[in-house]
């Protein structure tokens, strides 16, 4: 056997052994002479253990339907369906029927046993079901697990031995780590060098390298207090939030597109990203951070600038296709995404494992899972509007209250000083109705060939062919110097179906879009006139006149059922237009709905009245206004107040700044659906959530009310004891449940997650799973101590937690391998050294930008697209990352500002393990591959910035030695060694400085943080 194949076979056996051991395969080929006892224990019991115990044993803490299969009495008594086994009669034994999947509602387990296994069980029952397990097994307490035990700070182990450095100022973290190391016969490593420590702490806290001055200053005097000051400065710098927000965005699988078939971009996802950065930078206490993301609208209703926090629940994927065609499936899956994310991110729990059956390993019954579904049963993901300036929000609320009062005809509110102050001027100006001048059209054309003829009083009538859709183009010289609005009258006529005014069989019409152009005699090109407001004397339900100016050809104005009557609509211009002599006004009436919903007879007129007066009053209001004030009844007066109150409110609303948009969750949202389109979505009251048998939507069982995990006792686990079960109250209740000081999972979760990023590995190495399938923590007592300290002493301040960790000696020790320690603890779970981390994708990009001198550390704003876009075959565009121009504006922003398209990853970032954000990414993987090497060697980003770095170095010094020294200080935080310098000079001499920069950016010393 050659050495290579020897190695290979060793490797293979290493790989296979644990798997074989775990699989517990039984041969199923025993001799018939075997005694019943041996047969039971060697063949039957292992099968029961393997396939049944997870749901039917004391040890698992679960006996579904009351059935236990781990002792004889268990199956003799049976569960809710009676005895599970009738000895000697396999055909009538429920257990056999269940494993054979004979009955549709009792197929167990989900994955059917093999035919051999089933035969073994049948043989056993046939032979009399020998079972000598007479003693009731001890039930395992499912709460007896590190993450679920009461959270109490353990005592800090004895201080380090006197005389050791810093014993006067011992950090409790060091005490906990030291105690375990000593117990294992290990010792902490020496301090990392000052060069290593500055490199490490910059990477860790801000994700960008120190400048030359920062490096020099620290290296001149690398004292503990200088280090402490450096840490404080970094935590206070905006770069801290820009770095740590990325970790949180990974954790909650935030990205800028939907994922799935219609992987549509979310151009308004970014305000959530900015919120997270801001929250980290302002050190929002952790419990408040939780409450803001789940229900800031409830907890801080006045702080509308924080609404983007709700982007948390919108962070995940959205299956637009299933939303449209499989709505029930969609509801359950989308809520699954939200609850899974919430529970993983905040309490490190895999609640989604209880979707089809009780969690196999953790105390989470199926009801809990659906209770969590019910929390989110009233929201949809999509764009929502908010006032980024809270002062305007207050004004908006007041105006909306006025509008509501107008709609409700609330006499009291409409008579309030606030209302009257706004209503009266509007009513006054309306009383002076505008005068309208009819247009005598010079040309009037139906684009679909209908005949338009002029009648009396500048009225026009359509006849002849009645096309499906049509567009009228109407032009006239205007008898005014200045025009503020146009008016369209649609008129009944005996020649029209139902006497019109439309050409449709029912007399209706649909006006899809109105546009106006002015043609000056000396300018060949017409100018488009912006219409800001429209009104009509009557609007068909769902077909309001605003739809004729919304730019959407699919929506339109209609007048059904008020047919056979005249109606009119007024369109107000944004600015009055001045008309020189000879100017022509062109009005285009698009009628694109189909079904001959066309205008049958019409007139166009114009006015120069103040735009406030240009309005189409409803017929009823016009009638009341025609009465003398003294002749109006109270009810008529209220009608006027309500009508003008509504107008006043609209006018006031129009004066407020445009609201900002964030992709988040809401009861009424606008869902990006591709190519710039959106579709509305809303849920009036929370939907009913049912427990689904085996997670199957065709098998709904009882309705479940909102709640959370029942195993934790710090608060009632069902929220239906609360009087308010409105949508937002549900989210708020869950936020309270999570952020509760006595929630044992929340505080353990956040300290461990934070530790994970500082050390590359959590004390529990599965940061989003603290269940029995997760990792067992190396130092559970340190997690507990930190959790209590963080909650009580630090008051939920992450910055204090970071400071405590990065100033510990454990953190500052060397990452260098020590064979003698490695032999005892190869994976460094006990932290006898620091772990070496590789620059993650984001940091790699930011480091290269920083070293090139191009990095823009600016804060916030829309996501930067490092690709060009072309329309795709359907709603997802085609992206080309290679065509991006790296000198474009914002190309040099930090990676956190990158537009992350879920289904079309950036090849450079992907090669460095930027995660697939289809799923939660609580930690990143490590890859090394030829494709990564190719990307780092040849990707235009690296090459452009190799050049930029070379230019920067050349700018700063003409001397090659100094250029190389500077490069290495920037990239490695150290000076070159003599032979190294010679080699590099030789290379630069041949191929230039940019070539060297490229190689340095590819080197392991650059990519790994010591």
């Amino acid at each position, binding site marked *: 056997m050659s050495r290579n194949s020897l190695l290979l076979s060793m490797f293979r056996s290493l790989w296979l052994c644990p798997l074989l051991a775990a699989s517990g395969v039984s041969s199923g080929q025993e001799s018939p002479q075997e005694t019943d006892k041996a047969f039971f224990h060697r063949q039957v019991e292992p099968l029961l253990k393997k396939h049944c115990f997870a749901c039917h044993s004391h040890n698992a803490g679960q006996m579904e339907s009351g059935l236990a299969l781990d002792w004889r009495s268990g199956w003799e008594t049976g569960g809710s369906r009676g005895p599970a086994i009738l000895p000697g009669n396999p055909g009538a034994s429920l257990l056999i029927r269940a494993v054979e999947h004979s009955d549709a509602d009792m197929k167990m387990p989900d994955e059917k046993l093999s035919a051999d296994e089933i035969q073994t069980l049948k043989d056993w029952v046939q032979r009399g079901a020998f079972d000598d397990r007479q003693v009731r097994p001890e039930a395992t307490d499912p709460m007896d697990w590190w993450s679920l035990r009461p959270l109490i700070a353990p005592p800090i182990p004895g201080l380090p031995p006197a005389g050791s450095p810093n014993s006067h100022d011992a950090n409790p973290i060091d005490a906990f780590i030291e105690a375990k190391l000593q117990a294992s016969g290990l010792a902490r490593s020496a301090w990392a060098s000052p060069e290593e420590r500055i490199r490490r702490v910059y990477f860790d806290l801000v994700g960008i390298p120190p400048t030359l001055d920062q490096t020099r200053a620290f290296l001149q005097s690398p004292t503990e207090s200088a280090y402490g000051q450096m840490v404080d400065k970094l935590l206070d710098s905006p770069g801290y939030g820009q770095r740590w927000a990325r970790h949180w965005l990974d954790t909650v699988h935030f990205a800028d597109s939907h994922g799935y078939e219609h992987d549509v971009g979310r151009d308004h996802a970014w305000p959530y990203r900015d919120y997270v950065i801001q929250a980290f930078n302002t050190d929002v206490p952790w419990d408040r951070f939780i409450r803001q993301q789940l229900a800031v609208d409830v907890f801080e209703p006045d702080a509308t600038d924080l609404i983007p926090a709700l982007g948390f629940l919108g962070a995940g994927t959205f299956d637009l296709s299933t939303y449209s065609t499989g709505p029930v499936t969609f509801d359950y899956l989308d809520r699954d995404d939200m609850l899974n994310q919430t529970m993983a991110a905040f309490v490190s729990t895999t609640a989604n494992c209880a979707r089809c059956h009780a969690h196999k390993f953790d105390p989470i019954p199926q009801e809990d899972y659906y209770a969590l579904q019910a929390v989110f049963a009233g929201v949809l993901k999509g764009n929502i509007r908010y006032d980024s300036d809270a002062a305007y929000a207050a004004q908006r609320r007041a105006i909306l209250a006025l509008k509501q009062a107008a709609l409700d005809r609330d006499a009291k509110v409409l008579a309030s000083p606030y209302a009257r102050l706004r209503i009266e001027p509007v009513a006054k100006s309306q009383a002076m109705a505008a005068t309208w001048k009819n247009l005598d059209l010079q040309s009037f054309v139906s684009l679909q060939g209908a005949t338009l003829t002029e009648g009396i009083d500048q009225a026009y009538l359509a006849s002849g062919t009645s096309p499906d859709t049509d567009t009228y183009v109407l032009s006239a010289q205007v008898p005014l110097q200045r025009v503020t609005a146009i008016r369209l009258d649609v008129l009944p006529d005996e020649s029209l179906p139902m006497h019109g005014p439309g050409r449709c069989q029912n007399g209706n019409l649909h006006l899809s879009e109105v546009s106006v152009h002015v043609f000056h005699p000396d300018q060949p090109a017409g100018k488009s006139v912006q219409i800001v407001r429209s009104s009509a004397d009557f609007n068909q339900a769902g077909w309001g006149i605003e739809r004729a100016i919304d730019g959407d050809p699919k929506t339109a104005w209609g007048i059904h059922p008020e047919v056979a009557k005249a109606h009119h609509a007024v369109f107000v211009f944004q600015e009055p237009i001045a008309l020189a002599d000879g100017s022509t006004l062109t009005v285009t009436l698009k009628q694109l709905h189909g079904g001959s919903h066309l205008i049958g007879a019409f007139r166009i007129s114009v006015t120069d009245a103040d735009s406030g007066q240009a309005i189409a009053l409803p017929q009823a209001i016009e009638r009341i206004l025609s009465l003398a004030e003294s002749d109006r009844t109270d009810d008529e007066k209220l009608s006027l107040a309500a009508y003008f109150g509504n107008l006043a409110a609209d006018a006031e609303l129009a004066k407020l700044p445009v609201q900002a948009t964030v992709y988040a969750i809401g009861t009424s949202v606008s869902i990006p659906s591709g190519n710039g389109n959106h579709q509305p979505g809303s849920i009036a009251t929370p939907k009913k959530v049912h427990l689904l048998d085996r997670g199957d939507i065709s098998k709904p069982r009882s309705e479940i009310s909102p709640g959370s995990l029942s195993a934790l006792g710090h608060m009632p686990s069902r929220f239906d004891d609360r009087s308010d079960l409105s949508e937002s109250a549900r989210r708020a209740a869950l936020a309270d449940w999570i952020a509760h000081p006595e929630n044992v999972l929340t505080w353990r979760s956040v300290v461990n997650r934070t530790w994970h990023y500082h050390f590359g590995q959590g004390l529990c190495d599965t940061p989003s799973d603290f269940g029995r399938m997760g990792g067992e923590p190396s130092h559970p007592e340190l997690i507990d101590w930190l959790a209590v300290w963080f909650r009580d002493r630090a008051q939920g301040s992450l910055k204090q937690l970071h400071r405590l960790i990065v100033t510990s000696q454990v953190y500052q020790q060397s990452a260098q391998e020590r064979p003698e320690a490695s032999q005892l603890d190869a994976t460094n779970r006990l932290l006898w050294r620091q772990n070496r981390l590789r620059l993650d994708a984001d940091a790699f990009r930011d480091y290269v930008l920083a070293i090139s001198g191009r990095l823009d550390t600016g804060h916030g704003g829309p996501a930067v697209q490092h690709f060009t876009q072309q329309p795709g075959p359907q709603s997802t565009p085609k992206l080309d990352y290679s065509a991006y121009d790296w000198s474009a504006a914002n190309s040099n922003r930090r990676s956190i500002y990158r537009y992350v398209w879920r289904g079309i990853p950036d090849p450079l970032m992907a090669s460095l393990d930027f995660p697939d954000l289809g799923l939660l990414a609580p930690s990143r993987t490590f890859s*090394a591959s030829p494709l990564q090497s190719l990307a780092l060697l040849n990707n235009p980003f690296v090459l452009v910035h190799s050049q930029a770095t070379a230019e920067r170095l050349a700018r700063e010094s003409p001397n090659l030695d100094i250029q190389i020294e500077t490069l290495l200080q920037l990239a490695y935080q150290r000076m070159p060694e003599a032979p190294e310098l010679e080699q590099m000079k030789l290379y630069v001499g041949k191929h230039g400085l940019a070539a060297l920069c490229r190689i340095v950016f590819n080197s392991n010393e650059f990519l790994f943080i010591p």
Partner: protein
Amino acid sequence: MDSLSNRRKLLLQSGGGFATLALASMLQEQAHSKSMGAAQASNRIEHHVPKVKRIVQLFMTGGASPMDLFDYKPELERLDGQMLGPKEKPEGFTAPAGALMKSPYKFAQHGQSGRWVSELFPEQAKLVDQMAFLMAMTTKTNVHGPGTYMMNSGFLLPGFPCMGAWISYALGNLTDNLPTFVVLPDARGLPYNQQACFSSGFLPTVHEGVVLQANAKVPIPDLVAEAKYPFALSQADLDGQGLLRMLNEQHRFKHPGDTRFEARISGYELAAKMQLSAPEAFDLAQETAQTQSDYGLGQPSTDDFGKRCLLARRLVERGVRFVQVWSGPQGATNNWDNHGNIQTELPPMAQSVDRPIAALLKDLKARGLDSDTLVIWTTEFGRTPFAQGSLGRDHNGGSFVTWLWGAGVKPGVAYGKSDDWGYQAVENKTWCYDLHATVLHLLGIDHLRLSVRQNGIDRRLTDVHGHVIDPILA
């Protein structure tokens, strides 16, 4: 946890063939990477002797219509025009079910096996005796996105590794010169879910599908620097890689014991090999005029798919383990999602693949590659026996057809049956889990034992399901 198993975990995470290199260093062997050939680095997991080493998967985007291609349904002729479908629109149908609609195409029996094939696939019809048909494939959804995920990763959701990624993870590469898992999308665009169909999910990104644009000048992204960066080309590149090796060796010497350094150093050596080999692999001009014409190159209807089938053969021949060739982009046209009119939308799609597929199978056989190559023809779901509008067919996860060909496959058999309308699978229902389990089985892998712990669950390609379909195995 013992140190060796932890170390092993890390090695596996670092992926590719480097794990063996890393192992060597772990055992304090001074094995130089050059002595570790590619063949030794592969086959890391072998539960039993594999019959298949490489795979070409042909994926028909949109839901290829079974009852118009392979699943002959005379009953539809009898019931044509009758409103017998579901009264309420099932989840994922895009419209309420219309009347039953017979296939507008003639079916005939072919070969010794007597398999029914419609007139749309005349070339594949000649090869049915070499294929094994899964006639009762079924899936959990009637929606493209989840359906395409499911057929690729076994899950309806994004974020899970696809079959190619699992295979790369389990078996590593056959050659250092080319990527392990290559995806050749339709020139007109990506399938539903974009590249997320080829994702490595929670496995290291080294296992994700490398998407190659068959028409692109540079087949592999960033294979060489663009011409405007001379400092990254030719001698500058060569000398640069030398300098890089020196820097990295020096660094490794100062910081021993970190297997990741080794893995990255190998990455550059393998990248250099790939730079040398890849252009040759993509050069279709090396094929004879006859071969090019067999695959339909130069004919507008077959040129794109034919090129990619030919490329697939060249790639598997040179050691790429898994090549996925897609027919049709996402969207309303140019794919197998024939909602509007089966008579006008399906024939051009069928024509575009039929000849190239037949040429690929014959070519693989002629070159003896069929001894260890598997070809899979599939789609994400079937179509309704009910008309949509009056001439189209809607999505139907109830039943669809897949065929397998090549090493380890029993030729000329069919497994499973759909009902008389082709609406639902009724006999020997086959899920993606079973297909995936079977493919892994052919590769020497027990699907139950290939798992990775992720967020509290031991994840498998086959979730908690999957049975190897023995009746179609040789």
